[in-house]
């Protein structure tokens, strides 16, 4: 009887294993089904795994990076970024002219471009897309409308393929904004009309890929746009998968389930390399910083802020926390951005001086709020960063009381203003220095978390926006940096590198600085 039982259990075990294996295999077979008849050599599908699902696929209605990555392959804007920088290249606009006063932008459009639904792309379509994000049509859900089109007064259709955009005031970042994956991409007007002005679930653009399906919390499937006006994409299908857990995503890459992943941090690099995968790291357009609440009585005094910043050994902190995958921030702007100045210096590390000042001012306790999630600019997560700073402050006799919240709760807490110090960061959207510096004069306290309000600084911001790109403009931003550094409003901590990883079989992989991925040039040999 005993023997019998053993036999039965063995059989059951084997059966279970077989079922498990069959289950694993099934997925792959599905992905590789429907082979492309024409291309014998290339795999017909590339799979990209990201940490979260897009919030939607209407470029005007979402404001998150996970959506942007998908949309960047479906839609196009009038202009686009160069592959390795944020320089502006023509896209749906062949060429453009900017008037002397910087108020009128005239775009010549590509002819013969069709949206995925067959609607022709023309000046009317451009006007339709911008108008929906301007008053009176703009709605509160359009997160990037103000950022991208805030300076637009009106749009004129000159002829079928010429469109004129008139601005209210000169804005140098405007061109850069038009290349963004949020707000700026052009959506088919027919699709918008048919879908009640919301194509979150039914995206339709002019890009190299068409939307096929979206299975909630599982995947988004795109297929090649065979009628693409430019060079058609190399790979037929792109699948975006959503794997929330970092290590699960790494495992999915190393066992060949997916071809590319992003949203990883330094701790998994060794594991990825051991799995024979390639890690891609680019200088990120990011800033990770500590902000003093200038409205809080505890740190309203500039001397106190300076002393607190002096107590933190930033180079050591960055080296240790990010293990070489972030560089110490000496300025708010990353070094490759226009407006960066090597002359700007933050307060150095000087715990003795810090201790003396803090003792004299009687500062013993600081209320810190932070976030518990890893962010692209701070892969070690806000709580760990806060605890590291807490360690430094404890050495100069200051106790930090840390309240850590998940990201969405955190944003609400920031709104209340009940903190002395908080942690935040910014991912650059468009490569323009205004994108970063504007954070310090934004009237919205969830953007300007330091609640900084310096008329001199605000005047410089306005001047910077109105000045054309060049030395003069760069000097203005260097001056702003100096003011912020002198006032010790922020303690800039690090510029993160953006890490992503891919199967070395994938050809043509690149991850753009604006944290989006373009698949049209990528391919993978068929198995």
């Amino acid at each position, binding site marked *: 009887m005993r023997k019998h039982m053993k036999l039965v259990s063995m059989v059951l075990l084997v059966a279970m294993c077989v079922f498990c294996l069959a289950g694993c295999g099934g997925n792959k077979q599905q992905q590789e089904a429907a082979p492309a008849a024409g291309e014998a050599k290339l795999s017909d599908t590339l799979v990209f795994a990201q940490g979260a699902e897009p919030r939607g696929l209407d470029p005007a209605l979402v404001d998150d990076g996970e959506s942007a990555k998908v949309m960047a392959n479906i839609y196009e804007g009038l202009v686009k970024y160069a592959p390795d920088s944020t320089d502006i290249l023509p896209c749906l606009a062949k060429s453009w002219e900017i008037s002397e006063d910087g108020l009128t932008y005239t775009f010549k459009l590509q002819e013969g471009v069709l949206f995925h639904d067959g609607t022709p792309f023309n000046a009317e379509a451009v006007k339709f897309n911008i108008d929906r994000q301007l008053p009176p049509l703009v709605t509160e859900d359009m997160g990037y409308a103000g950022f991208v089109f805030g300076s637009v007064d009106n749009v004129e259709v000159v002829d079928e393929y010429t469109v004129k955009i008139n601005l209210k005031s000169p804005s140098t970042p405007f061109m850069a904004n038009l290349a963004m994956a949020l707000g700026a991409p052009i959506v088919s007007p027919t699709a918008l009309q048919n879908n009640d002005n919301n194509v979150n679930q039914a995206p339709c653009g002019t890009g190299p890929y068409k939307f096929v399906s979206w299975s909630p919390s599982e995947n988004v499937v795109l297929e090649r746009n065979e009628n693409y006006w430019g060079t058609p994409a190399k790979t037929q299908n792109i699948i975006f998968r959503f794997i929330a857990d*970092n*290590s699960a995503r790494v495992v999915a890459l190393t066992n060949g389930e997916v071809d590319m992943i992003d949203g990883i*941090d330094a*701790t*998994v690099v*060794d*594991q990825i390399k051991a799995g024979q995968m390639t890690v891609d790291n680019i200088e990120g357009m990011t800033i990770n910083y500590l902000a003093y609440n200038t409205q809080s009585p505890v740190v309203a005094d500039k001397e106190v802020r300076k002393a607190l910043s002096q107590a933190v*050994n930033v180079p*050591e*902190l960055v080296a*240790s*926390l990010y293990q070489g995958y972030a560089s110490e921030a000496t300025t708010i702007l990353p070094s490759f951005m226009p407006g960066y100045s090597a002359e700007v210096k933050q307060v150095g590390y000087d715990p003795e001086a810090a201790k003396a000042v803090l003792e004299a001012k009687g500062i013993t306790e600081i209320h810190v709020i932070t976030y*518990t999630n890893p962010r692209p600019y701070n892969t*070690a997560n806000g*709580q*760990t960063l*806060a*605890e*590291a700073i*807490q*360690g*430094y402050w*404890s050495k100069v006799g200051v106790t930090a*009381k*840390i309240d*850590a919240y998940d990201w969405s709760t955190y944003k609400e807490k920031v709104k209340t203003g009940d903190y002395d110090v908080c942690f935040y960061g910014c991912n650059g959207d468009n490569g323009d220095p205004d994108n970063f510096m504007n954070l310090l004069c934004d009237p919205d306290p969830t953007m300007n978390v330091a609640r900084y309000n310096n008329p001199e600084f605000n005047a410089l911001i306005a001047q910077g926006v109105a000045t054309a790109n060049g030395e003069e403009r760069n000097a203005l931003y260097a001056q702003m940096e100096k003011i912020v550094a002198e006032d010790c409003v922020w303690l800039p901590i690090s510029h993160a590198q953006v890490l992503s990883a891919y199967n070395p079989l994938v050809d043509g992989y690149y991850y753009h600085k604006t944290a989006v991925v373009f698949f049209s040039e990528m391919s993978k040999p068929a198995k």
Partner: protein
Amino acid sequence: MSEQNGQEQVLEKPESQLKEIWYSLCRNKGALIALGIIVFLIFVAIFRDFLMPYDPNYSDMGKAFQRPNSEHWFGTDQLGRDIFSRIIYGTRISLSVGLIAVTFALTVGTVLGSIAGYFGGKVDTVIMRCMDMMLAVPSILLAITFMAALGKGIDKAIIAIGLVSIPEYARIVRGSILSIKESDYVQAAKVIGNNDMTIIFKHILPNVLSSLIVRATLGISTAVLDTAALGFLGLGVQPPIAEWGDMLGRARGFIFSAPYTLIFPGMAISLTVLAFNMLGDGLRDALDPKSRNK
């Protein structure tokens, strides 16, 4: 019958019974080792301030992620804090949460269970249906809900974990009381005019004691595990306080690059839980006259 025999033994020669339990426990090697571990843990918890080689919260960023070495026996964590010191510090937290939460749950559970079992009727229905409601929700989920409402902190963890384990004790006590209260000696105690409280506490509860002791010992291990779970989920303690589950949760990203940041807190949790479980098992055998007399 055996129950009454046990009862007679308690009345006649309590000393010898304690001795017998002790001998029975000694025969169970596993339980004895477990007892040794628990005594050791309690020792560590009491004398932690003398045992810690470093300040558990002192962070030296330059020394982050050091492998276990002669200076830092268990290595250092992401912020350059000594893991050995942090584990010693966490011992008191885990044990005290376990002990206090169980004591609280035991006290409240016993009182509620006795009232429900002894008086029966509507009181019974009201109390036990409330307990059923609490039992219907997984205890850790309930604890998370309590923590989310109360906020972070050891004291709140104690309350949360204590509250969710009340129903178990209430059920055990009620069940035992239901079976005992109809027995002749309870009837006799009633007849000679003892009041309800005396009957419950003097005559009934001592009979429930053995199962309660076993349950409470096992309950401590559950409580230690729940504390760790709350810490792991980031709901346990206020940073930078060292707590095993919190240490484990914060280190889980480094499982491949710095496994020692996980292994040691994980071992501490497993060891503690295992010790209480084994002791609980040993006690159950020792306290059960049937298995003892084998």
